[in-house]
């Protein structure tokens, strides 16, 4: 039975071997949601984008009820950060867009998916490399506001404080980078690896 024609005969001789779907079931499937990796990531990014917009609007409205002071400046800093996030999410959606495997053969589709996911993951990693310093200096700025600018500057004259601050900053960046790397590897690492293996097989 090992020759192709024999195998074809066996393949065709088998009855349906599955439970046929009714037309109504197929029609219902069209209302469902895609579980493809691109579809899932897009949904998550859309959720994050909408959540950020909602929080920004709520904070903006709240800011108008405040008098000038530390809390107001804190909220304004957050709003600036959220604005940066809006661009970040839009860029993510643009990176994920225009992926349509239907017109491509399997090899091109795998290459395209691998390229898109790699760009996406790299963008994610780079963005956080930029955002960690932003978070850190924002924290420093808020701390300065809280203690008073003069007091803060006085403390910064002490070499011990500066050294401690640099140490904390280094630790913050390293831990942040490791956490992001671990998170990305956990989320997309296996899938990227699988795509790479499939491409290697096709090129072999």
């Amino acid at each position, binding site marked *: 039975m090992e020759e192709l024609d024999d195998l074809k005969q066996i393949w065709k001789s088998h009855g349906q071997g599955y439970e046929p779907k009714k037309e109504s079931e197929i029609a219902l499937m069209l209302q469902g949601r895609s579980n493809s990796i691109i579809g899932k990531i897009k949904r998550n990014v859309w959720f994050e984008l909408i959540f950020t917009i909602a929080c920004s609007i709520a904070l903006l409205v709240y800011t108008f009820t405040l008098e000038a002071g530390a809390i107001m400046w804190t909220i304004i800093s957050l709003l600036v950060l959220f604005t940066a996030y809006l661009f970040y999410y839009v860029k993510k959606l643009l990176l994920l867009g225009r992926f349509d495997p239907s017109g491509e*053969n399997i090899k091109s589709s795998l290459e395209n998916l691998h390229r898109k996911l790699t760009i996406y993951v790299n963008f994610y990693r780079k963005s956080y490399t930029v955002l960690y310093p932003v978070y850190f200096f924002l924290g420093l700025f808020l701390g300065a506001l809280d203690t008073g600018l003069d007091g803060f500057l006085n403390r910064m004259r002490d070499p011990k404080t500066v050294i401690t601050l640099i140490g904390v900053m280094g630790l913050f960046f390293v831990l942040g980078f490791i956490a992001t790397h671990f998170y990305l590897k956990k989320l997309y690492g296996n899938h990227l690896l699988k795509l790479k293996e499939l491409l290697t097989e096709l090129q072999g």
Partner: protein
Amino acid sequence: MTEDQEKSFVKLVNENQGLIHKVCILYETDKEARNDLFQEIVLQLWKSFPTFRGEAKITTWMYRIALNTAISGLRKLGRKIKTEELEEFHFNISDNTEDNFEENFQKLQWAIRQLSEIERAMIMMALDEVPYDEIAENIGITQNNVRVRMNRIREKIRTLIR
């Protein structure tokens, strides 16, 4: 898309659903996962239905999307096709020709599942009489490459079934 388009699409899928079922059977082991994959393939077909201009054969178009979805799609990580033991099928020795066909089919299905995802796609199309040039076009390799790989696949199946 219009209601008429939806109706003709549903009719088309209904008429060719055997192809989708076969892809699901070869790429997923449990019933729930097969149903999920079936739905995902239908969704991807529906998404690209407006771009289908009828230049390619309908089955070629369906194969391309179904296999693309099965291979590159995200099935739950770690939910891989397990290397199944042949004994799991509990073949019954019978003189009945129909039973023999069923047994042979089960063996063949088991052997195909042991192949890589790309090899599974190739043998499946070959068994369904898809010409080598179309297999080459769907996979994205040359016809010569298809021939070489098909020989290797046949060898593997021969060893597995022996």
